[in-house]
């Protein structure tokens, strides 16, 4: 046994020794000094057989196991493989020597000749992106393009960020929850004031904070919110700076003017932003005052029941002549590391008018009812607002109180010229509406932590009063008033059970008092007896009462040990108690019913770059006071509506699935989502259209609806050529039921839309932007099948002959279906020249240079088809100047 083992060992050693070839040597320079760090490589063809580097004495030793060309190499045998021995060093000329490895040990010495090899240098740019936990920090300067002026211009270039026309910022399709400047949320939802007025060059960093928790006490909670924090450069900190702006121009032989100023100051503990603008040009400061948190244009029972007539919109060009102005004062003071006070006060004014004609084909079972109208709506709105917020945001307690007072004074006119089929005479109808409302609101939110327990209390009090809405339509008078006192109080006890489980037990009480009164006076009122009964007033509606909803929503959440999986589920139980009185017919309606609403949400985090979330829930809604306002109300010269008198109840079940992936250092983001909703309501909307009137009501019969949608979005930045590519696609499907001309109609809608966008900077002096949108809609009922599609392409080219001058031209092309098989095209052209000096930005803008004055498109609303011809705002030329005034530090 021992002998066998010895024989095998000898054979193995013999084979190994036969296969090994060693190449050794020494490398010196011309002065015979040893050269260290020389890469020595044995190469056969393009294949590296062995490699090493020289030591401090210039010595190397290479061992080769196996033959260079795949054959076994035996010492003493003639090998067919010629090899090359290469010597390479960054400070010497590269040399190589051809060898035939005949010997077991081959010695090759080499003398190198000095030669500096030039490396292709790669400059490290300022870190465009840093990642720290859930926060991505972008160096904004790395993403800025030459023509960018405002912070919004810069933010648009960041991966995953998209900004809507109204300025709403979203990250990977999800709207941001907070907008901070230097860690302070001064503007709330009105962050456009900052993004549209802070110069891009003043912002150094943009932090995108995923899984953001504004309240420090929620640090251990799950969140899928995204927030943005802007860090300003030292140029913008600790000293005031401002931007006066002014402009002058012409449009349709009218003088246009614009003027405004924005002043700002940002210190570590105090921030101030004051801005005022006024213009009749249409888009000067237009979106500055948009509140992305909502709630600015509040509605009341009376204004919802008697709504205003809207302006005519257009998806290409501008259709609304607008005069707008605002004044806004915002300040935030950080009192210490946890407490702050914020004050926001605004006044906005807006005047809008537009004009259009439309041809409506109302579904009427067999032949459609044709009505042609020409409208010229005019709207004026004054909206003052004041709010003050106190916040104490510590890691073991949180208190905040927000008080706001708002008012709106609205005037609305909408004269309509009407032409019906079979009637060649056009009829002029006048419509006028005035509405005034006030809203007082207080919100308190307090949370304290007691060990593993967290106790919260919230209280919302909302008072809305509309003293009068008056609508005059030809000789018809419709008025209304309403009062609402809505309160919601809740308390919640949250208990952590170990590291994985959490139990939440919120108790909520909603208590509302509502009152609405409507009064319709028609000169040719048919029911004379009713006029007498109401003392000469034709149709009087008056409903008041209260709603009391106690509820409890126990829920539990579980997080896996590796925090990758999170689940939450609960059941919301509420008891709806209603007591409404209709004074007109002295009818009292009461209801007391328990509703149960289960809900679940799941989230799985695959890794730091991708996660998937799922949520599903069942919800009930019931008891709208409007359901009991059975008295007809007139909402336009030809439309009336009346409620069913039955308390509406609806149930819906919604499911959402969402997947997001981001590869930060590849500047790639991807998101996909899908949702499904199914609902049932105990009343069915009903509408009857005739040549002279449209009547809407609800009847006591179940109606069902279903909808599904899905989509994806992706964006990729290629920093080397300042390019951002993005793509979005969405598909939706839905079905709904309603009564049309006393027939039950089930309609099915399917829609597709695709958007592709590329912002490319192929050379430093040229920027291009191309965007294409395509959408197609299908509408199917039992008796009809309709479809429409539209294509929109937008391209812009900006040339920078010198870095401070931008010449930009933008072209819009629309290809829309007007009627089946018939399409209409429209092209719009605009151009601008911008000069950026050190302290001023001058811009000459020409909009609608081709002076296109009309735009036609088709739309579907339920089973009705409309062909709109919108009158567009004519050629506009405007010169604006924005100055930058910065004080000395």
């Amino acid at each position, binding site marked *: 046994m021992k002998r066998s083992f010895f024989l095998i060992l000898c054979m193995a050693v013999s084979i190994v020794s036969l296969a090994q070839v060693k190449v050794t040597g020494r490398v010196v320079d011309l002065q015979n000094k040893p050269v260290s760090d020389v890469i020595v490589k044995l190469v056969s063809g393009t294949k590296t057989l062995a490699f090493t580097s020289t030591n401090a004495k210039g010595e190397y030793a290479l061992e080769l196991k196996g033959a260079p060309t795949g054959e076994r190499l035996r010492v003493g045998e003639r090998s067919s493989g010629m090899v090359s021995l290469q010597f390479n060093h960054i400070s010497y000329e590269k040399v190589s020597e051809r060898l035939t490895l005949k010997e077991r040990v081959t010695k090759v010495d080499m003398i190198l000749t000095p030669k500096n090899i030039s490396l292709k*240098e790669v400059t490290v740019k300022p870190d465009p992106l840093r*990642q720290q936990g859930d926060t991505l920090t972008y160096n904004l300067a790395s993403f800025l393009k030459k023509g960018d002026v405002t912070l919004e211009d810069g933010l648009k270039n960041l991966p995953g960020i998209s900004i809507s026309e109204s300025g709403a910022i979203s990250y990977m399709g999800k709207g941001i929850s907070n907008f901070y400047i230097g*860690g302070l949320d001064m503007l709330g939802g009105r962050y456009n004031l900052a993004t549209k007025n802070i110069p891009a060059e003043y912002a150094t960093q943009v932090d995108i904070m995923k899984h953001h928790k504004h309240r420090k006490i929620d640090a*251990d909670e799950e969140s899928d919110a995204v927030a943005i924090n802007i860090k300003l450069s030292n140029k913008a900190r600790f000293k005031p700076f401002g931007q006066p702006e002014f402009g002058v121009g012409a449009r349709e032989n009218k003088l246009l003017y614009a003027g405004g100023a924005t002043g700002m100051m940002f210190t570590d503990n105090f921030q101030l932003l004051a801005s005022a603008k006024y213009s009749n040009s249409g888009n000067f400061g237009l979106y500055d005052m948009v509140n992305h948190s909502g709630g600015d244009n509040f509605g009341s029972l009376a204004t919802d029941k008697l709504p205003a007539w809207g302006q005519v919109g257009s998806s290409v060009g501008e259709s609304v002549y607008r005069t707008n102005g605002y004044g806004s004062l915002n300040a935030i003071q950080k009192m210490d590391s946890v407490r702050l006070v914020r004050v926001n006060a605004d006044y906005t004014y807006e005047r809008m008018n537009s004009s259009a004609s439309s041809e409506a084909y109302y579904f009427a079972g067999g032949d459609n009812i044709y009505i042609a109208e020409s409208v010229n709506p005019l709207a004026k709105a004054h909206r003052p607002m004041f709010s003050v917020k106190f916040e104490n945001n510590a890691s073991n307690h949180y208190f905040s109180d927000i008080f706001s007072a708002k008012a709106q004074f609205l005037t609305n006119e909408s004269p309509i010229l009407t032409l019906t089929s079979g009637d060649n005479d056009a009829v002029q109808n006048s419509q006028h509406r005035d509405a005034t409302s006030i809203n007082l609101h207080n919100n308190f939110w307090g949370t304290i932590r007691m060990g593993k327990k967290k106790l919260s209390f919230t209280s919302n009090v909302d008072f809305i009063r509309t003293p009068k809405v008056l609508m005059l339509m030809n000789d018809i008078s419709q008025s209304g008033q309403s009062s609402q006192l809505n309160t919601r109080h809740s308390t919640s006890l949250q208990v952590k059970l170990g590291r994985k489980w959490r139990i939440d037990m919120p108790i909520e009480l909603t208590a509302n008092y509502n009152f609405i009164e409507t009064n319709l006076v028609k000169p040719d009122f048919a029911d004379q007896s009713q006029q007498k009964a109401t003392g000469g007033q034709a149709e009087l509606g008056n409903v008041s009462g209260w709603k009391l909803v106690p509820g409890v929503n126990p829920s539990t959440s579980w997080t896996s040990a590796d925090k990758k999986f999170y689940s939450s589920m609960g059941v919301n139980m509420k008891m709806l108690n209603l007591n409404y009185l209709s004074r007109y017919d002295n009818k009292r309606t009461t209801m007391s019913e328990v509703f149960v609403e289960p809900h679940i949400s799941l989230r799985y985090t695959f890794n730091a770059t991708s996660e998937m979330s799922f949520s599903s829930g069942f919800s009930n809604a019931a008891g709208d006071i409007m359901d009991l306002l059975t008295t007809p109300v007139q909402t336009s010269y030809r439309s009336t509506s009346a409620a069913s008198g039955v308390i509406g109840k609806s149930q819906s079940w919604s499911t959402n699935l969402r997947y997001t992936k981001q590869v930060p250092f590849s500047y790639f983001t991807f998101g996909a989502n899908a949702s499904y909703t199914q609902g049932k309501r105990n009343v069915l909307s009903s509408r009857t259209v005739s040549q002279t009137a449209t009547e809407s009501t609800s009847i006591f019969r179940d109606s069902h609806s279903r909808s599904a949608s899905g989509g994806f979005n992706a964006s990729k930045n290629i920093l080397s050529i300042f390019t951002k590519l993005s793509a979005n696609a969405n598909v939706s499907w839905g079905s709904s039921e309603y009564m049309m001309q006393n027939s039950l109609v089930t309609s099915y809608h399917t829609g597709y839309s695709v958007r592709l966008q590329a912002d490319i900077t192929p050379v430093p002096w040229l920027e291009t932007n191309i965007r294409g949108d395509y959408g197609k809609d299908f509408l199917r009922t039992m008796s009809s099948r309709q479809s429409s599609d539209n294509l929109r392409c937008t391209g812009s080219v900006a040339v920078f002959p010198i870095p401070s001058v931008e010449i930009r031209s933008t072209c819009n092309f629309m290809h829309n279906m007007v009627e089946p098989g018939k399409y209409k095209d429209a092209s719009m052209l605009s151009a601008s020249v911008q000069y950026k000096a050190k302290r001023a930005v001058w811009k000459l803008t020409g909009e609608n240079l081709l002076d296109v004055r009309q735009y036609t498109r088709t739309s579907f609303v339920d089973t009705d088809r409309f062909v709109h011809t919108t009158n567009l705002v004519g050629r506009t030329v405007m010169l604006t100047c924005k100055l930058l005034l910065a004080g000395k530090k």
Partner: protein
Amino acid sequence: MKTKLTIILAFVASTMSAQMLTRGNEKLDTLCQTKFTAVYQYSISTSDAEGHPVTDSIRLALQVGDGVWKTWTYERYLFQQQRDAEIGDDHFWFMHNEALMHIATTTVGYPEGKTISLESIPPLQYEVTEDTETPTWKIVEGSDSVCGYLCQKASGKFRGKTWNVLYAEGIPTAAGPWKLQGLPGLITYAADDEGIHTFKLIGIYQEAVPITYSAGSMVSKFSMEELRMITTVIPYETATREEMQKQKKNVFGNRLYPSNPRFYMTGSNEILSVGQKSGNYQFMGGLYVPDKAHKYQPLELK
């Protein structure tokens, strides 16, 4: 008795960070001149104190000289080159990342055949000397381009991890980031097979600047006598690689560490707290100590 001296210095940006970045009366030995400097983006995929997956990232400078190369934080390299403007306004974020990622300064080839690492376990800094060890590389099929350089693929085992790398034969040196070296060209990309650690080349400067070695760590203190900040040089503690591995595993690998990075500290510790807008930065023995840390992901398993 446990005593702590906490000095709050609010809104002191440039001067304080200069001291934290150890420029001043530091004694530096020049080892050699560089042939070039390569800059890498180094990332670690790990999890935070709550267990959420996170990716930390920092830039590293690899200074390559004749037979000696040194890997350290790019911002410290910039600071030594007096290129302060390139560090940016916020001097503190990279110290935070340095601490989260346990970045060591690694000098390969000094002394000859040895590698010296300056490792930190606050409040002490350790000098660890070991024999230079080359991973067992195997050149594999495939190539790619990094920073415009054509690179060949290779794979190698090094102290318990398998590394997949790209190297550029157009840059003839055996150097690479950290202790990864020994290929016939500069290592331009390296990732371990678990996808935890990644080095990616992002810049190259052909320059001749000194590769230095500091004899001790700089510690900034507030002198109650002189009522000003003073900086002193404290010699490094010394440890073998095995001792250091064990100590880091015990401290950084402890389950308490992510939520309380000071859990292991006892006795008297002098804390220098520097107030910045983005928060308070606390230093012990000249080393930044974060409030919360991330799960430790060692580069060497053996």
